[in-house]
C-alpha cells in the first residue's frame, strides 16, 4: 500500500475529489494546512503597520491506495490540482506497512 499526500490550493479541492471518485477512490482525508514553497506570501497592512504573511493557506489531501494504483492516482491528483500558476503545490507518496478498518478489523488492502 501507499499513502498519497497532496498539499494543494484550497480551491482545487472539488476538482480533485471528483477526479478521485471517478478513479474509484472510496475515501480520503482532508485537512487545512498552511505553508510556503516558491510561492511568496503577501503583505497586509493594519493602521499603517505592514506585515509580511509568509504562510499561505493550503489543503492537505491524504489517500491510501494499493501499490499498483499509486502512480496512476498521483497523475489523477496532479492533473486535477494544476492551474499552471506558481503555488500549485506538491504531491508525494510513501509506502505504508499496514492499515486496519476500525469497525471490522480487516487488515491490509481489504481495509481500503
Amino acid at each position: 500500500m501507499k499513502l498519497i499526500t497532496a498539499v494543494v490550493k484550497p480551491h482545487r479541492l472539488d476538482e480533485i475529489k471528483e477526479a478521485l471518485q471517478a478513479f474509484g477512490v472510496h475515501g480520503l482525508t482532508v485537512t487545512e494546512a498552511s505553508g510556503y514553497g516558491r510561492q511568496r506570501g503577501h503583505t497586509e497592512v493594519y493602521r499603517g503597520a505592514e506585515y509580511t504573511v509568509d504562510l499561505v493557506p493550503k489543503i492537505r489531501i491524504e489517500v491510501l491506495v494499493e501499490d499498483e494504483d499509486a502512480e496512476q492516482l498521483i497523475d489523477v491528483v496532479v492533473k486535477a490540482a494544476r492551474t499552471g500558476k506558481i503555488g500549485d503545490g506538491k504531491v508525494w507518496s510513501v509506502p505504508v506497512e499496514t492499515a486496519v478498518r476500525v469497525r471490522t478489523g480487516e487488515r491490509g488492502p481489504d481495509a481500503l
Partner: protein
Amino acid sequence: MAPAITTLAADAPELSAANTGFMLICSALVMLMTPALAFFYGGMVRVKSTLNMLMMSFISLGIVTILWVLFGFSLAFGTDIGSIIGWSSDYVGLSGIGVTELWDGYTIPVYVFAAFQLMFAILTPALISGALADRVKFTAWALFITLWVTVVYFPVAHWVWGAGGWLFEMGVIDFAGGTAVHINAGAAALGVILVIGKRVGFKKDPMRPHSLPLVMLGAGLLWFGWFGFNAGSWLGNDDGVGAVMFVNTQVATAAAMLAWLAYEKIRHGAFTTLGAASGAVAGLVAITPSGGAVSPLGAIAIGVIAGLLCAMAVGLKYKFGYDDSLDVIGVHLVGGVLGSLLVGLFATGGVQSDVKGLFYGGGLEQLGKQAIGVFAVLAYSLIASAILALVIDKTMGMRVSEDDEVSGIDQVEHAETAYDFSGAGGGASSRSTAAPAPAVTENKKVDA
C-alpha cells in the same frame, strides 16, 4: 455640556416628558458604547487575549456604576468647592434626590441626568484599556479604574461640566466630552504605558487583529451609540441644538472615515476595514466637543482633519517606541485635542452659543480658552494616571508575568478560551461538580 436654557429663565422649568424620555433613551445608547468599545478593541487583539480585552471594558460597567452611586455623582456634579470638585450629601448614595426633582435649569429629573452622566463615567476608563492590551493583571486594572475615576474622572468632569467648575466658568466649549472623556482617557493611557512598558515582542512579533468583523461591529455600534452621547448632551430638545449636533455627528464621522481611507490608499495601497473603522471613530471623537458650535460644512472640515491627522498619528508609536497597543493616544488623544481646538476656528456663533471662532471673525480668544482646557486636562490626567499606575505597580504589580503574557492572558486571568475551533473540544474534559454525570443513553441508535 449645555448651559441652562435661558429662554425660560423667568419661569422655573417644568418636567418635560419628551425630554425625559429622550434622555433615558440617550442614556441607554451611551451605555451600549462600552460593550461596543469592548468589541472594537476585542477584535483588534490576538486570539489569546480577546476575553481579557472584552472584560477590561465590561468590568467598568460594574465598578463605575457602584462608585457613581456611592460618591461619584456627588464629586462630579455636587455643589462646587473651589472650582475643582463638587460635593452634595444629598447625592451620596443618590438617596436625597426627589423623584420629580429637576436638574437645575433643565426639564429632566436629576435621576435622568445622573444616569446619563454615569454612562460617560463608565466609558471613559474603558477607553484607556485599549493601550494596555495583553499584559495587565485584572485585579490591578480593577483597582486602577476605581482610583482613576475617583481621582481623575470625577474631578475633571466637574471642571468641564459642573456648575462652578473652572473650565466651565472660563467658557471652554466641550459639548459632549472632547476634554473630559477623550483627552482625559488618551492622556491617561499615555501615563500608564510609560509606567508599565511594552508588550512582549512589540515591534518584533506580528500582532495582527484577530477579528476585523468584530472591530467593524464594534465601530458600528459605537457610531450608533454616539448619537446618544452627542445629541443627548444638550439634555433636551427645546431649541434644536441637539438636532444640529446629531447631524454634525453623522457628517464629521463620514468625512473622517473617507479621509482616513484616502490617506491609507495613497500611503499603503489599500482601503482597509480597520482604516474605515478607525477613521469613523476619529471623526466621532473630534466632533464630540465641537459639533454643537459648528455648521455641517465645518463638521466636514473637522472630520477630514481628524481623519488625516489620526491616520498619521497612529504610526508615531513605532517611531517613538511606546506601545499604545490599540492606538488610544493616536485616535482619542489626538482626535480629542483636534476637536477641542478646532472649535476655536470653526464655531459659527449661531448654534449652541454666540461664541465665534477665528474663521467666523471671532479672533483668537476662544481658541486660547480651548487650548487652556486641552492642556489642563491633558497634563493633569497624564501625571495623575502615571502616579496611580506607579503606585499599583510598586505594590501589587500591574503586569502579568512574561510567561503568562506570551502564553495568553485569557487563560491566566479568566480561565477561559475565546473560541473553541477544535471538533474534539480542544481536549477539554469535565471534572467539576457542575457537569452532570454522563447519562446512560438507552435506545442508542446503532450506527452500522
